[in-house]
């Protein structure tokens, strides 16, 4: 898929209040008024990061706290309506950016949205290698429900034990998917550092495709695990 994107957010060129030149700072150098975040910025650039997937959460937190101290509405109570509006909008964007990038799964999903234009919720897809196990789990879930309905405790206990074993299979699979995702994070980051050439582009597309596939299998497994957890009580 061909996507048009900008490597860097366009720096705002002019202060909304005094029209002086500004270069991407939080506050105008002349009149010290708070500046709106650029419309072209994404969550990575908002937090001063390049689009890499391995993020040091400690320094991310430090940056988030620093920017919160700059933008939070608590510090704009007595200010003009425009400054309060900028503070509110900036804070809201900042909070969403931090929330998204703090979590590796949300971070990867967000990158897919940015780079490959995927939808907000990646639909779940059953892992093909577990096809038979998944069918069995579905059957056992239904049988357990029926056994519970007729108060058959021995049958319920037998099915519950089986489901517990199958749950372990799913959890193992999920851990394997997450391990591969972590590898892909490194692959992606190395590609980001490289200068642009056709092979890098193809590599990126391949990595994104695989990440998307893993996320959708993982999402499927999570739903299944939630169903099992609910059935087991």
């Amino acid at each position, binding site marked *: 898929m061909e996507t048009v994107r900008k490597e860097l957010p366009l720096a705002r060129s002019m202060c909304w209040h005094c029209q002086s030149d500004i270069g991407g700072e939080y506050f105008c150098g002349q009149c010290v008024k708070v500046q709106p975040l650029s419309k072209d910025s994404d969550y990575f650039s908002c937090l001063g990061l390049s689009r890499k997937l391995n993020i040091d959460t400690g320094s991310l937190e430090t940056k988030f*706290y620093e920017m*919160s*101290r700059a933008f939070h*509405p608590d510090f704009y*109570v*007595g200010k003009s309506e425009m400054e309060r509006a900028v503070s509110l*909008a900036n804070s809201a964007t900042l909070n*969403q950016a931090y929330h998204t990038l703090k979590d590796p799964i949300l971070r990867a999903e967000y990158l897919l949205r940015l780079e490959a234009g995927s939808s907000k919720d990646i639909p779940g897809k059953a892992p093909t290698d577990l096809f038979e196990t998944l069918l069995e789990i579905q059957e056992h879930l239904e049988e357990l429900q029926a056994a519970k309905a007729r108060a058959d405790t021995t049958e319920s206990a037998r099915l519950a034990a089986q489901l517990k074993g199958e749950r372990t299979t799913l959890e193992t699979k999920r851990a394997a998917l997450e391990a591969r995702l972590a590898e892909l994070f490194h692959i992606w980051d190395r590609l980001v550092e490289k200068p642009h050439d056709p092979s890098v582009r193809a590599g990126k597309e391949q990595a994104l495709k695989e990440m998307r596939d893993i996320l959708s299998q993982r999402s499927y497994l999570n739903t299944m695990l939630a169903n099992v957890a609910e059935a087991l009580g």
Partner: protein
Amino acid sequence: MARIVGIDLGTTNSLIAYMNGKTPTVIAGREGHTLVPSIVAYTPAGLVVGDAAKDQLLRNPERTVYSVKRFMGKGLADVTQELQYFPYRLSEQDGVIRLHVGDKALTPPEISAMILRELKARAEAFFGEAIRKAVITVPAYFNDSQRQATKDAGKIAGLDVIRILNEPTAASLAYGLQKRKQGLIAVYDLGGGTFDISILKIKGGIFEVLATNGNTHLGGDDFDRRLVDLMMAEIKAAHRVSLEGRPELQQALRVGAEQAKCRLSAEERAEVRIPLPDQRGEYRRTITRTEFEKLVADLMEKTLEPTRRALADAGLSTTDIDEVILVGGATRTPLVRQQVQALFGKVPHSELNPDEVVALGAAVQAAILSGGIQDMLLLDVTPLTLGIETMGGVMSSLIRRNTTIPTSAKEMFTTFVDGQTSVDIHILQGERELTKDNRSLARFQLKIPPLPAGVPRIEVTFMIDANGILNVTARDVRTGEAQSLEVKPSYGLTDQAVERMIQESFVFAQQDIKERQRIEARNEAESILRATEKALARADGLVTPEELAAIRDASAALTAAMAGDDHRPIRQAIEALNKATYGLAERLMDRSLLEALKDKKLSQTP
């Protein structure tokens, strides 16, 4: 910047606090009490609030409103189960509960506004200046309607509510400032009517709430009710007294239960004595702590589930928590302390008075907002998932619970039919899948220009501000123009209704002031008339006939003035009588002084 005060508008008690230099301080009333009971009573002499209203609970149960916070932002259907515990009558109009007090039907925000006005007056007397701005606290688990209702109450009371602040986070601010706590903190807040648990990370002056959970219908009131139920059943069985239509007895039971509960925090047993109607004697009952703990064990258990959920949402386990803070009067119950300690494996903190700590925290937040404190910043979260209704009555979530606020979500809307000119949007809050299981917040209609299906593109922004209150705006993407929205709250007052109440409260306040001034003037007149009679009885040889005539005339004039409605002629007549009796009073004073001296001399003689 004008002064901002911090207010804890509680179920049972309310407080007002300010920053005294660097120390948050609760403002006491004339009698030295810091707590204002959250009770409002209509007496024959007019409206009374606080301690004076508390005195009316037993005497005037049908006209005395308490625990109004339980009704904030609710419809009648939400509270049917607990109506039996309230001696006053409730109804619903336009999705808002009305409390019937005498011939008035008042909404919970109006009643809360009376309490707020009392607090405001207390602060104004203390500072000698008008108070207009306040931070008001609410349970962290309050939904949008309940928060909005609290903000409305502030408006009706003539306050600009600068911030709606969550109670457990307020407490953490007070602890953070005064006790310099750092690390991962759990705040366990069990108040009169609500339970909250908040998990925070405190680091370098930033108070970041990681997760919050709770139950807005669980508190000390429910502990009392268990005792009331027990005693009601016993009275019915042993004395064959039915409690129906006996609000006095009901109220006596409730007050007795509350007192017993409080005593059981310090003692092993407490006795309740309730006089029974129709000369049936007295009901006496000794309750042991063990018995009480058995009665409330399941209520206590109910607080543990939200606690576990909050920890799970924060991605933490109990052992990760560095400090546990107890807030709310109900955490004085030894059982609560034991269970919290058992859950977290550490002794919880309660160094700051659990009744005052929330108000103190509100004062700290007020100082942050006014610029008085610059190194502290609170980052709070929205407690409940926000969403909209989609096809088939399913809720589609827009903003997840425990998202840091302010936050926003954008949603694009279009049409399904050619020429369609509006889209109805139903906003919900809650954690369940189906619309019907979640809380309806509001509905609004999006106006759309008539175009072929799918062509219009209206972007709606759902913004939750730092108060945890939702604001909705819409924009036509094609034209870039803002769309006006008329949001109709499901369980709340419309802006027009609030505006009307502000006006009404202004008129009421003036009537109330007049009433109060007249009562005070009459009371003073009565006592001065009594004092005059007493003085005249002892005045032999000290008063001239002319003086006596003048005093009699002035007394008669005052008695006549007292019959009127205006306090000013009464005040003038009091002045005149004071003048007429001045000489006599002095002479009486001299004589009693002389007598006192004589007595002293005699007593000193060996």
